[in-house]
């Protein structure tokens, strides 16, 4: 079974709305990261949040981490059509030096 699982699997919203994606994981982590993948492209790193942090911001992105619930959320505010992509959370598990990815959330932002 996967370490990280995102929900929803797919999200469709209008431009200007906020988009929230959630990620749950199973084991202790060093940090959790969010990546974006545009169709037919590689993954782009968005934001990293360490296990001792609870919230982090980067532009229109806000990430929260709740280690007691083993969950994280990614909020994109004032979404744009260009935000249409798949979003993946990835967990850096203590001592393993590798990222384990969830299955992703496909976000579609309609003009």
């Amino acid at each position, binding site marked *: 079974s*996967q370490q990280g699982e995102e929900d929803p699997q797919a999200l469709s919203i209008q431009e200007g709305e906020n988009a929230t994606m959630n990620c749950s994981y199973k084991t202790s982590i*060093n*940090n959790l*990261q969010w*990546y974006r*993948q545009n169709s*037919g*492209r*590689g*993954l*782009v*790193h968005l934001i*990293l949040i*360490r296990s001792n942090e609870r919230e982090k911001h980067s532009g229109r992105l806000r990430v929260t981490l709740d280690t007691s619930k083993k969950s994280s959320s990614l909020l994109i505010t004032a979404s744009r059509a260009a935000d249409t992509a*798949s979003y*993946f959370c*990835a967990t*850096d598990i203590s001592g*393993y*030096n*590798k*990222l*384990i*990815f969830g*299955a*992703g959330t*496909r976000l579609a932002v309609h003009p």
Partner: protein
Amino acid sequence: DTAVSQTPKYLVTQMGNDKSIKCEQNLGHDTMYWYKQDSKKFLKIMFSYNNKELIINETVPNRFSPKSPDKAHLNLHINSLELGDSAVYFCASTTIDNSGNTIYFGEGSWLTVV
């Protein structure tokens, strides 16, 4: 200049053939990875090399053989290709330190086995 570059981007080949995908990073990183993304977009780590040494091998069939001639290159050779090997293969790199393991990905190599 592309930070992590991999070639070829597209590869169509017949079952049973042997093929290679090359990867190079110019970020000065000490760790490189191969990930496989299947048709459901699920990303799974295959291998990781740190300073040319294999540190992660995720139960990948031995038809897959990574080779790291130096820490800036990690190539993937696949023998006796099977239909199930069709996927997108991503090379990635990072520097492992206490600040976090941010990984930089290449654009992917689309492998189709027919």
